[in-house]
């Protein structure tokens, strides 16, 4: 397959190629493609304009796009073979879904500040604080259920507002501000709980997250509803675009007339509020609250959001996060079923997922960001490769003469290529032979 339709006209003096860019709309994929056609404009072919897709035709099915689904399939195959008795039961997957509901809630809250370009490390501490507040009010203060929940949610809003104030007004780096805030919140939670488990919450509170159908808990519904709302806001409303614009370049977004400070404020408040919801679900689902009960959710939430950001959109998105949580939890669950070291496997899993996903996305950007993949580069095109093999064709008569071809010029340079290298060079760049009989 060549870049050009028909023969290319090559100007022998300059090496320029006469070509014209023609746009065609591909009816099937509705993607704009470029083809070189007919002679109109003299232009060097810019390989960046070559938008041939990778050999993998269905780009949507590419592992880079939906790798998490392949991972999920792999876990199914592995565990079906390994522990078929326990893996192939509804009970297993039910418990995975029930366990991940709270993680999904927290992760979805986290997507928004990350999209806006600020970190919120205080989500776990906010969860603990909200859980402690709601259970303390219910148990020690004998509050009714809904006022207690309302108080915990208000606490979430207040935490978000303080975080946002520190970041936007005082201009502390979000990482530091929320790290400090999380320590302060942990202190609050320890103080309020007296560093003991708070037990004995009323049934009306515990029944908020009872099973409703197929053994699924109500928290699953809440997680799904929140996910749908977040997905709609992020993908389909102007607000979502403003979040991403702020995250992409704060100054550029400000100059485009966006109140970036307000969106950062909103993002922090939303994430703290959603974390508070997570904390309440946590208290209700487990029936006992400690000062540190939210802490184990911090790293998995980050791992899920970053792994999700490598899926579908190449930026933070809700479906990717949702699936990542499912896959990571299934992997952990399967290992637990197989009886592999129960205690540390979860930490290992989520830590690796975070490192690999972030590493993958930066690696892709670094290595392939500015360049073409090798199969899309011009010098890897069949005509070039064939020309090299046959020493005939496009590449065999180079117009560029390197400095080492001119002995007078070589003195200005420090070194000459080695013998082997010179041989190799002269194979691809042969010295011009003198014309015979003329």
């Amino acid at each position, binding site marked *: 397959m060549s870049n050009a339709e028909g023969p290319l006209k090559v100007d022998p003096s300059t090496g320029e190629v006469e070509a014209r*860019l023609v*746009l065609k709309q591909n009816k099937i994929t509705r*993607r*704009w493609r*470029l083809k070189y056609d007919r002679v109109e404009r003299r232009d060097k072919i810019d390989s*960046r*304009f070559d*938008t041939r897709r990778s050999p993998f035709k269905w780009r949507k099915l590419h592992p880079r796009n939906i790798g998490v689904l392949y991972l999920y399939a792999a876990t199914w195959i592995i565990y079906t073979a390994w522990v078929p008795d326990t893996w192939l039961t509804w009970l297993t997957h039910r418990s995975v879904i029930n366990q991940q509901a709270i993680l999904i809630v927290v992760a979805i809250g986290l997507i928004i500040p990350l999209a806006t370009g600020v970190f919120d490390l205080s989500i776990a501490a906010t969860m603990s604080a909200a859980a402690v507040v709601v259970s303390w009010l219910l148990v020690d203060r004998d509050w009714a259920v809904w006022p207690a929940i309302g108080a915990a949610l208000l606490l979430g809003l207040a935490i978000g507002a303080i975080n946002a104030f520190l970041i936007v007004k005082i201009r502390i780096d979000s990482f530091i501000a929320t790290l400090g805030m999380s320590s302060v919140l942990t202190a609050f939670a320890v103080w309020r709980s007296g560093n003991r488990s708070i037990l004995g919450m009323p049934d009306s509170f515990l029944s908020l997250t009872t099973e409703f159908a197929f053994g699924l808990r109500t928290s699953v519904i809440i997680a799904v509803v929140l996910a749908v709302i977040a997905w*709609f806001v992020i993908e*389909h*409303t*102007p607000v979502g*675009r403003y979040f*991403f*614009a702020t995250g*992409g*370049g704060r*100054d*550029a*977004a*400000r*100059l*485009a*007339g*966006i*109140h970036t400070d307000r969106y950062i404020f909103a993002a922090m408040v939303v994430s703290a509020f959603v974390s508070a919801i997570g904390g309440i679900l946590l208290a209700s689902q487990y029936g006992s609250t400690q000062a540190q009960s939210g802490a184990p959710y911090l790293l998995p939430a980050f791992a899920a959001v970053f792994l999700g950001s490598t899926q579908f959109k190449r*930026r933070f998105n809700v479906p990717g996060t949702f699936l990542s949580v499912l896959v990571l939890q299934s992997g952990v669950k399967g290992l637990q079923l197989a009886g592999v070291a129960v205690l540390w496997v979860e930490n290992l899993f989520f830590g690796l997922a975070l490192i690999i996903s972030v590493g993958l996305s930066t690696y892709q950007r670094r290595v392939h*960001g500015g360049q073409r993949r090798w199969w899309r580069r011009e010098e890897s095109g069949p005509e070039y490769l064939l020309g090299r093999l046959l020493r005939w064709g496009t590449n065999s008569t180079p117009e560029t003469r390197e*400095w080492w071809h001119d002995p007078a*010029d070589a*003195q*200005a*340079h*420090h070194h000459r290529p080695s013998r082997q290298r010179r041989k190799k060079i002269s194979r691809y760049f042969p010295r011009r032979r003198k014309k015979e009989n003329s």
Partner: protein
Amino acid sequence: MSEQRVITPVLDVESLSKTYPGQRALIDASLQVLPGEVHALIGQNGSGKSTLIKTIAGYVKADHGARVRFNGEPIDLWHPRNDQRDRIRIVHQDLGLVPTLSTIENLALGRGFDTGALKNIRWRREAKRCQELLLGFGLAPDVRSPVATLTAAERTAVAIVRALQDWDDSVPGLLILDEPTASLNRGEVEALFREVRRLTERRAGVIFVSHVLPEVLALADRITVLRDGKVVAAGEPAAQHDTASLVRLMVGRDIGAHVQHDDKDFGLNTLEVENVFGITLKGATFKVRAGEVLGFAGLVGSGRDEIGTAVFGATPRFAGKVLVNKKKVFAHPHESVKAEMALVPADRKRLGLIATDRLEEHVPLPRLSTHRKGPKIDTKPLREDVRGWVEQLQVEPPILRRRLEKFSGGNQQKSVLARWLRTNPTILILDEPTQGVDVGAKAAIYDTIDEFARKGGAVIVTSPDPEELVRLCDRVLVLRGGMIACELSGANLTTSRIVTETLGATSLRAGTRVVERKLGFSVIRDDAPNGSPTTRAKETT
């Protein structure tokens, strides 16, 4: 061992070219610096001065074919193991100091500290050495405090001292001074000149780059003038020249105003800027009428690079008012956008666009309200709308899903223009609209601006390139030292006038504040016979 004494130049550069993608910054430049001479290098912005200096300093690799000799020996300036590197010292325009480190630490950066028996730094001895070095400039700053806390003059002195320390006299060396006098007052300039003279007595060659022509004439022995990447005067003795002849060499052909500028009938005042103060801006008052293109010229630091963002509210505005159609606009980009203003910033990569955005997200960002379905963005009609704008401005290739970082500079700029024209503004502010843009895209951008003005929009253009201003503008205000120095229009609007006025070559020295300043009062000088700009402004209102 010949009897005849031949002077070998310290630096002998021949047939030096540098090609950047899309443009040739230097074409066959040559430069000879003799030992013991001050060689001035002058030229307009974009003439290739800084490229030449960067090439000599080894930061930029020249095109193949350049011949460089240092003290008679051919060297490869760009080879990492270049043993002559220490013989070429450079003081950058931005000085290249680390602002958080102290003077002592900055001076020790390249050379290392003086240490005692336990490899401990001998701070007292170091401090004494630094103070002695700086006293040569008649300055006694606190050498232990961070460089950021020093005054501009002191910082310059530190940078020069750093370049001169441990100067080895055995072989002639080369010192490059890139606009060192920009923030110095007269006494400090004289101290600098003294130091430079002392250095040339030790047979060093000095390349002196400056925009201030009187200084060039006072200090330099020979002058090389660059224009459009070519050397137009190679090493001519300074005694043969005066400011007027140098300006003529720098500008070359004198481009005058287009005929179309004269018979234009402008509408009412659209934008009124009253006495705006910014970081470098010290009271700017001007008006732009509908259909008019107003240009701003000036050197770096004259307020030219700030005026667009200050009017738009992107950089802080410490005083003054901006009125659009007689309505006051609060200093925030959001308010400016609401008041139908648009800003195409100079720093396109950082401020103009979000590099990872797709074209279809970038273009509609400032105004998403046009295509709404309830709370939802109505994606399909929006995409069609964007496609229309992309096609109108000929962004190539018009692939809406392509990320902006993959477009060329010209197409990025066109997409930024498309984004703002889509908001249907009445005032368009363009900061250096063709910076980093290839020739074809440049013409397209000029046409777009002309078209916008013809339809009754008011345009502000700032540019370091006088030709661009003459091509685009109906009127040009020249900024100097943060203030509007003069207004050029009609027959006065020529490239040489713009250059002369920006340099202040007639009377003012950039950097020295000769003109009295008071809050709410800015000096406007106009040599045009038909009255001052203030009276003209009154006529129009």
